[in-house]
């Protein structure tokens, strides 16, 4: 299905998006994809600058740690 979409887009002269191109039967491919994804995860982490307050190091910016809202709503559903 993905290949079909890619070929169609290419045939129409449209830019073809990259994707991970993972081959689960190839160790190299898995490692390469994992590296790309690890980079992607770390891209979201910004609290390792020299200007980061010490209490923020190791944490993620909002809304990542604000999970009390959803959890409290579950809690409030209980009688």
């Amino acid at each position, binding site marked *: 299905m*993905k290949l079909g979409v890619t070929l169609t887009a290419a045939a129409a002269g449209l830019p073809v998006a990259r994707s*991970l191109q993972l081959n689960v039967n190839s160790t190299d491919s898995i490692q390469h994809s*994992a590296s790309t*994804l690890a980079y992607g995860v*770390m891209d979201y982490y910004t609290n390792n600058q020299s200007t980061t307050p010490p*209490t923020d*190091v190791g944490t993620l910016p909002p809304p990542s740690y*604000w999970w009390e809202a959803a959890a409290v709503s579950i809690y409030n*559903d209980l*009688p």
Partner: protein
Amino acid sequence: MFLQVWAGLIDFWNYTNDTRYIPTVQEALMAQTGPDNNYMPPAYFYTLGNDDQTFWALACLTAIECGFPVPEGNSSSVYLDLAVAVWNTQVYRWDTTSCNGGLKWQVFESRSGYNYKNSISNGGFFQMSARLARYTGNQTYLDWAEKSWNWMRDVDLISSDYLVFDGTNDLINCSEVDHTVWSYNPAMLLYGTALLYNYTNGSESEMWQDRTTGLVSACADRFFTPFDNATNIMYETACEPKNNCNNDQYSFKAYLARWMSKASIVAPYISDAVSMLLKPSAEAAAGACSGGADGVTCGQKWYIGGYDGSYGIGQELSALETVQSLLLLDGEVRVNRRYPLTERQVRVRVEGRPTTTLSIPPKGAATSAGGGDGTSSAGNAQTTEADSNSRSGDGSGGGYGSGASSVKSMSIYLLAVLPLIAGFAVSTVLR
């Protein structure tokens, strides 16, 4: 939630030998230890759940199980010391004033959620106890692992069919349960039961094996194959189809992949079944990581065949951990440390090739969407195996599973009785 990121990156180093994030991970783990070196930083008291604190300890346990480097200037046992310190604060919080035990979700009384005893906090304590039991050989941790499992069963946070529900209200003595089923809850338990299967012997090991089998089977049934054309693709059942996952829930698939794959190393009889689930899931995840300006940003839903536009660190982590789990599962791949370490004096079985394999039949026509062969019916609670494949609702009200409620009533079977006592191709390792 952010704490689970670091454990995933420790695994990334372990599985790929890529050292580039080591300093960042070390810095993160050391930055939040708090004044008492037990991951209780005052700046976060306002939001500190037992689960939050536990996640830091679990990252430390991952570090010691795979030999992740200790940052310079710290004792060589710093990660173990931190995990033990966390465990010590939590065992002290075991609350017998309601529900005959259990941990509250929140640490501090003023916090909303203080009266909620939930699976992630108690399951997290269970997994910590199991990992410490095996790593140190200390009986106290094993006793508490059993105690916390038994408590969760007693209040029905773990059902007899190995569904794990979200939590329960101690103001009503835990007489009712929130039946929402999140993937990270059974996943959290699964690594613990698999470790204890490996660490214990005889009938005790068989007991933990039954629980491991039950959890894997329930996960396979509940969190994979959302539709007939999305076979063995992982999804977060309680929120993805409804498009109402919150930030943390986007990441739960990461933990399911993580703990299923790690469980496979110490309980190799499940590894074929787990591979059969995680490989298609990884492929689907890769297909979903096709958005953004870079063309590789991960979306949330993996079963739609492309990028769904919902991006964030949870989505990215879910894809990373599912993809990288394949490196752990593949016995031919050289990783730093595949088999979790123990302290020198602890003996554990090391199973090479498993002599039996858990087989989970593919989900077939037994769907409530009605595309089936007509032999099963979502509404018929009297059937056994077919019923356990139905996916009506979220599991509340007894619409799931047969009433007989034993592991054997579920759609799994073992190819042979496991010869735990004799005739088993293993070696014991004295480390």
